[in-house]
């Protein structure tokens, strides 16, 4: 029985226990109640759900989470964990699911950029967010999006006015700190780029090793005509963290999104990216890599829907799993009727470093338009013995040779990433993940 599961019970308890920002607003209360009811009906996604086929939640279902970290607003220790690139420049920092103005730095944002926490927005002016939060339950909702709708207490609302160009990256940092109990944080965010706007976002996840928290992020990202969003994800969540994300992206005419993702941390990590190339000539480039050790589990769902004529998507993803780690990559390209001239591709290569590691990769194409170019390819393999021997024959020890090759394998995920300091940061993280060679 679903209702008996500790996870589900703890979520219902959280809903009763916690007074959320904006409660008392009739439309918001109704949306939250509906979502919670739908969650009660649907429960956690199971492996019959195509998008959760290789990610089992059986262990998670047995865990109970606290409704929040009551001390999140004042908890110390986050500053030391801020990633180096985020220490300078503009940043929005969340600690255990709560926005922290004291750690953030948003004063130097150029004109035309508005950043606010969801909690503040709901307190000050909730009406403009109605379109985002007052949603009916639909078929695409899974247990986590429903929980998010029912329980989201914070998030980031980010708007860039038409024509505004933000050169320096805006860092969004999620920090996990140990609390009295493992808690669940539901964050609801919005990113809107007006026509012709340009923005760089760097999203970081960092945390203490033993927190056990669950972070559940749902966000809508709208990129209007001719706007360009550059988005980098550097995920180094704490070793015990559960991190679930759904990002719904909509690209209008001639809009572009460039995504780079480096997924290194966490215990159970998932990112479901739903990119809708709605506008003509809209473009979505994604490059990403995960490197997993121990019993880490990462699930990358890259779901691209072409609706605009001559829209373009290209995805290049790499996966590496060692020990008993498990990776999942699902790349889907759907070309809808009317998206004539669309060009979509998805390439995924994976590397298993241990006989007990596993990576499941599924590229899928569905095409319902004319004159479409679509390509995909996926492989799972091991390090090439010939290449390993070549390195060793030059004096490079076996372990070092393996590391060099794994780094090289992942490096395409960083291609085109800039500015240079960010790229160097990511390269260093990759090297750390695969300890440095003496070269």
């Amino acid at each position: 029985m679903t209702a008996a599961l500790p996870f589900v019970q703890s979520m219902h308890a959280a809903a009763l226990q916690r007074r959320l920002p904006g409660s008392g607003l009739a439309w918001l209360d109704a949306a939250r109640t509906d979502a919670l009811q739908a969650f009660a009906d649907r429960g956690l996604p199971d492996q019959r759900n195509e998008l959760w086929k290789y990610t089992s939640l059986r262990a998670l279902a047995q865990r109970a989470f606290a409704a929040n970290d009551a001390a999140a607003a004042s908890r110390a220790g986050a500053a030391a964990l801020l990633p180096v690139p985020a220490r300078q420049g503009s940043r929005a920092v969340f600690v255990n699911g709560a926005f922290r103005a004291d750690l953030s730095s948003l004063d130097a944002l150029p004109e035309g950029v508005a950043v606010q926490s969801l909690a503040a927005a709901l307190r000050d002016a909730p009406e403009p967010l109605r379109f985002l939060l007052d949603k009916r339950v639909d078929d695409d909702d899974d247990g986590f999006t429903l929980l998010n709708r029912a329980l989201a207490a914070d998030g980031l609302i980010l708007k860039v006015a038409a024509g505004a160009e933000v050169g320096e990256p805006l860092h969004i940092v999620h920090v996990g700190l140990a609390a009295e109990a493992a808690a669940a944080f539901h964050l609801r965010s919005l990113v809107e780029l007006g026509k012709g706007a340009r923005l760089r976002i760097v999203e970081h996840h960092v945390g203490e090793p033993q927190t056990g928290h669950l972070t559940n992020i749902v966000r809508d990202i709208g990129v209007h005509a001719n706007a360009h969003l550059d988005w980098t994800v550097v995920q180094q969540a704490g070793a015990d963290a559960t991190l679930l994300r759904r990002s719904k992206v909509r690209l209008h005419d001639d809009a572009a999104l460039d995504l780079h993702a480096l997924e290194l941390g966490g215990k159970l990590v998932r990112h479901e990216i739903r990119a809708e190339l709605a506008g003509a000539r809209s473009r979505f480039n994604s490059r990403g890599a995960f490197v997993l050790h121990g019993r880490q589990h990462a699930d990358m769902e890259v779901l691209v829907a072409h609706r605009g004529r001559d829209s373009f998507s290209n995805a290049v993803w790499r996966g590496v799993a060692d020990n008993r780690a498990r990776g999942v990559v699902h790349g889907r390209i759907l070309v809808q009727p009317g998206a004539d001239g669309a060009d979509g591709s998805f390439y995924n290569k994976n590397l298993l470093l241990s006989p007990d590691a596993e990576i499941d990769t599924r590229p899928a194409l569905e095409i319902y338009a004319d004159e479409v170019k679509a390509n995909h390819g996926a492989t799972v393999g091991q390090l090439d013995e010939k290449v390993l021997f070549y390195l060793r024959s030059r004096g490079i020890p076996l372990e070092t040779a393996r590391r060099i090759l794994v780094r090289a394998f992942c490096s395409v995920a960083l291609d085109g990433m800039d500015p240079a300091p960010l790229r160097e940061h990511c390269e260093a993280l990759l090297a750390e993940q695969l300890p440095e060679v003496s070269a």
Partner: protein
Amino acid sequence: MLTIHNLHARIAGKEILKGLSLEVKPGEVHAIMGPNGAGKSTLGNVLAGRPGYEVTQGSVLFDGKNLLELEPEARAAAGLFLAFQYPVEIPGVNNTYFLRAALNAQRKARGEQELDSMQFLKLVREKVKEMGMTPELLNRAVNEGFSGGEKKRNEVFQMALLEPRLAVLDETDSGLDIDALKRVAAGVNSLRSPQRAFLVITHYQRLLDYIVPDFVHVLADGRIVESGDAQLARELEAHGYAWVRERTPVEASA
């Protein structure tokens, strides 16, 4: 320096080397010729320690040490270098980075000071000049997209940088144009010294006009069947390997 005695080796259960013996002294250049499939590359691979090759009999001493019990990286650090017949491509690994990792790994294994990037780049610049290397190749991924000849030249460049004591060149001349062949030969000759020895595997007498060997051996069916001086290579060129077979096989010497 290198003493191979009655070496038998198998790959995939098939015996390829069938009692090969060879003695190489410091300062010597030995050429090894022989028909396709005779086991020349197998010899190079066994010496370098390629996994999958099983030595069933015999011994190999390198500077008095049992070479066969060393890992490939330890053999390299001990001064052995194999220029591959088919150098592999390593996408994503920068050639200069690779060279520095290799050189420093060897130095570290030998208990020598590792080179910092300034020292290393200085060394590379010297070697680039010495070997007539195309500097652009150093900024690319190791062998990726290199032409056949460029790969071979990259092998020789690595050798020049790593300064091994014994270099095995496996058909390094195949695929080289005339100018490149001369440059490679000049590079090898400039590295010749009383402390260093070469094992040059080739099908062509032409290379041996430039790198004049002290000894020429014919390897056929897993054994050295004929040994001589540079003149032997010319006779092989004129008569082919059938001529060797017709003569009474001589025991491995030199």
